[in-house]
Every structure is written in structure tokens, then in C-alpha cells.
């Protein structure tokens, strides 16, 4: 089992309830998209899985371990096996892209290697390979403050690819990218997950991307799981109900009109065949 949430609730210190009684189980190698309006609890759900937040109630199990029962050392090792792509990548503006990517392995590198890598990057080729997958290899030695929002998000993705975690969490990983780039970046995350057989769970604001790339869609609304379905069974009514609190049309990443039923599953299985062969 990759992770298991059992009746998990989370209440922020200010009393705001972000998640109530959520239960979710994922087997190793599953790919799950979490969709829902802003403030539905998507980030909270991912941070609970990252063992960055401790649930107020309920039981969290990640990679067959219960994070909050572990000693400090074992919790640290568990965290190093989980990769989180942040919506606004937490990268120091003065840091170089290469350093930001290599930082993905700080959890597993011995301290002296991390220290030496500041004087001369420990794995230039490895960092470049991951950045090249996202079409950004030419910015390897630039500083993060010279990059646009979408480029920074790709550096954040490259860091997690370089980390090679057993559980990939992505919190709106493509929110600052144009449709083509967003599609390409999600493709890389999905490829990474399928080739290494690790679990990928991504929160996405854009419904079309979710339905296209993920065989399992979890709808989150007001801190509760509204539905948990394969994309072919996600109806337009379910989506309208999910986004009822947001005015206007359904949030999409591309500008094409939204078509149901999605071709997600068929396209996906084709792609999977080609990447695994």
C-alpha cells in the first residue's frame, strides 16, 4: 500500500477546518488527480501525505509507516522518500538552478557531500538530465531570480524528479504554465511514475488535465471527498456540483471547449504501452 488515510481531519491552529473525515487508499503505482475549487483542502491533503502536517483526527499511513509514531530519525528517512512539488516553488532567489535541483537529494546524501556540493556541484549531469526532460536545460547555471513563474515550477518538478521519491505529491504543479507546457510537464511526471512504478498524486485546478492524464479522479469539496471515480465515470453534473461555489465555466487549462466523455483512458493506455515497451 502506498498510503492510507482513515477518517482524517485537519483543523488549522486558527480553528479553520481544512479537511473532515477524509478516507483514501492508494496502492503502489497508482496515479490520482485531486480536483476541486480553491479552499477545498487539496493542499492540506497533500501536506498530510507528505507528513508535513499532523492530522487533528484520524490515521495516516504512508509507505507502510505511520509517520507520527516514528522516532525523529526514522521520520526524517521517511520524508526523504516522499517528493513534493509545490505550487509556488520554495526556492531562494539567489540560488542557482543546479543547486536547487541537487537539493532534491539532501535527505539521502551524507552531510559532507551536501557541503562539498556547494563548492562544486556533485552531479551536474544528473541535474541537467532532469531539467532537459522539462526543456529547460539551458538555464542550469542561471539564478532562480532570473526565471519566470512557469520556469520556476519546472525547476521544482526537476528537483523532485532528481530526488527519485517513492511517492510523488504535486500541488498544482503546472498552475503558472501555458497549456502545451503544462501538458508536457504532467506527461513527464506521469512517465516518471509509470516507469519507476511509484505513486503519483497531483492536485490540479484544471479539470481537463486531470481527466486526460489520470486513471483515478478524486473530487474534493469543502474538506470532504465528494467522489472518487475513474475519469469515464466523472459526469459533467458531478463536476458542476463540485465547482458550484465558483462562478463561471469549469476551470480548464486549454482553451478548447470541454468535451465529455473524456478520451483520457484510451489515450492513456496507448501512451502507457509506448512508454513501457
Amino acid at each position, binding site marked *: 500500500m502506498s498510503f492510507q488515510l482513515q477518517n482524517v481531519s485537519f483543523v488549522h491552529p486558527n480553528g479553520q477546518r481544512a479537511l473532515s473525515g477524509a478516507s483514501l487508499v492508494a496502492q503502489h503505482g497508482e496515479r490520482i488527480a485531486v480536483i476541486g475549487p480553491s479552499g477545498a483542502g487539496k493542499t492540506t491533503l497533500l501536506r498530510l501525505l507528505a507528513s508535513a502536517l499532523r492530522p487533528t483526527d484520524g490515521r495516516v499511513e504512508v509507505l507502510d509507516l505511520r509517520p507520527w509514531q516514528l522516532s525523529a530519525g526514522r521520520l*526524517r528517512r521517511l520524508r526523504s522518500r516522499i*517528493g513534493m512539488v509545490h505550487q509556488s516553488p*520554495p526556492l*531562494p532567489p539567489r540560488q542557482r538552478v543546479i*543547486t536547487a535541483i541537487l537539493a532534491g537529494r539532501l535527505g539521502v546524501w551524507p552531510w559532507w557531500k*551536501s557541503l562539498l556540493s556547494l563548492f562544486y556541484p556533485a552531479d551536474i549531469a544528473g541535474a541537467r538530465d532532469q531539467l532537459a526532460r522539462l526543456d529547460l536545460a539551458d538555464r542550469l547555471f542561471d539564478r532562480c531570480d532570473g526565471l519566470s513563474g512557469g520556469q520556476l515550477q519546472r525547476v521544482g518538478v526537476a528537483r523532485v524528479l532528481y530526488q527519485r521519491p517513492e511517492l510523488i505529491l504535486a500541488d498544482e504543479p503546472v498552475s503558472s504554465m501555458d497549456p502545451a507546457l503544462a501538458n508536457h510537464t504532467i506527461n513527464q511526471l506521469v512517465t516518471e511514475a509509470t516507469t519507476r512504478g511509484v505513486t503519483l498524486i497531483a492536485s490540479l485546478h484544471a479539470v481537463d488535465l486531470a481527466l486526460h492524464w489520470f486513471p483515478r479522479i478524486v473530487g474534493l469539496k469543502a474538506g470532504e471527498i465528494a467522489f472518487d471515480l475513474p475519469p469515464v465515470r466523472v459526469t459533467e453534473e458531478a463536476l458542476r456540483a463540485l465547482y458550484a461555489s465558483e462562478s463561471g465555466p469549469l476551470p480548464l487549462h486549454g482553451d478548447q471547449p470541454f468535451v465529455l466523455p473524456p478520451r483520457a483512458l484510451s489515450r492513456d493506455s496507448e501512451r502507457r504501452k509506448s512508454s513501457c515497451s
Partner: protein
Amino acid sequence: MNKAATHPRDPDARRRATALVVAIIVLWPLLVVAQFNPAVLFDAKNLSTMGTFLRGFVPPEMSAEFLGYVARATLETLAIATTGITLAFFVAVPLALAVTRSLSVSRIGPGPGYWRGTVLRAAVRSLLTILRGVPELVWALVFVRVFGLGPAAAVLALAITYGGMLGKVYAEILESTDTLPARALLESGSRQGVALLYGLLPNAAPEIVSYTVYRWECAIRASVMMGFVGAGGLGQLMDQAMKLLRGGEVVTILVVFLLLVQLADAISARLRKQLA
């Protein structure tokens, strides 16, 4: 229609006004206690006393022999300040690492060791207060008794007091910069020290460097003060000049001071530019 709706008010205005009034009420009696009275400066008798004292300052003493003493003493002062601040740095870094909340792994969650961490931070914080609470001059007086006259006493005094100051300010700089990068690294299994290097230092380095150089400048001044109690350097030279009422020598030493402060300023500007 009610008035509040048509003229929106700043809800914080009353709190700011109260703070201002309280500040004035607190500061006024302090001025009185400190016997601050600028009129005394312009009293005729005081003016003439000051005049005589200042007239003794010209011309500055420029004899080769005296300049030789000054050069030696300057070197000694620089050595005291630099060694002192280096030792202080090594005292400060581990202590700052221990008290910086944004580098605490156990605060995430909170996880295992949360209370131990909280108690440790409080303990180290009070240790920092003790270190910098006793003025370096007092430490110097103590150490002069132990080591005898000479620079060793001043170096140790600086290491202790400035270690406390640097530790406190380093921790505050680290907590006032963007802490999210370090937090993200801790959340993916980095150790504390590594999260500091990769997550906080890139943002905080220019401020830390400029504060450290500024403290080095302060250490130069402090080592002069400690020279008055027998800890060597320019201060000891100045103490002798003052006691012998040689104004010219005093002024030469003061000029050297100004040059040293200028030097510190230039170094700081240069380093900041390089790290920007």
C-alpha cells in the same frame, strides 16, 4: 445609512496612536533621569574648558618614532579584533542554529522531540543573553587578572560577548528571511545544518556578512576601550597619551581609528556587492 459605511476607518489607528502616546510618556522621564540638558554645552565656562582641551590636539604628533608605535599598536588592535570576532563566530553559529525556530524539525507536526526542542531553544536563548549581557570591558578586567596585561584578555572577552551578540542577531536574521525554502527541505528529509546552507543562507548571506563586518568594526573600537584597562593595542597607547596630556598623539590615534572604520565600511560594501 450609518456613518461607518460611508467613511471607512482604519481599525488600527487607535492602537498606533496609543503606542505613540505611551512611547512619549515612557521616554520623557528617561531624558530627565539621564540629565540630558543641551544648554550645558553652550555655557561660557564649559566652552572655554572644551576649547583648551581641543587646542592641545593640534598639531597631530607625526614623529617617525611615534608613528612606529602607532603602526605596531594598530596591527595589535586589528589582530585582537579579528581573532576575537573569529572566535565569536564559532561560538555564535551553533548557538544560532539551535535557537532558530525555522530550522526546527520537531516543530513540523509537531513531531517527536518537540518539547525537548522548545526547552533547548529557551535554554540556549538565555545562554546567549548571559554571554552578551556582561560588557566585554568587564570580561577584559577579569581576564587581565588571569592572563596578565596583553591582548589575550581582550580576545577572550570579545569571543564571549560578541559570540552572544552574533548568535542572537544571526538567529533573528535567519528568522526574518523567507523560511519556506528551508521548511520545504526539512519536509523532504534534510538535516538542520544542510537546510540552513541550502534554504536560508542564499537569502540571508548578505545581511549576515554585513552584520559580521559591522561587528568587526565594533570589535576594533571595543579592543581600544579594553586597551585602557591594559589589554594592549591602540587603546593602551591612547591611555598613555591621555594621561601625559599629549593631545597631538591622541589626535593621530583618532585619525587611525577613522581610517580603520572607513576600511571596515569599504570591506562590507565590497562583500555585499559580491553576494547580492
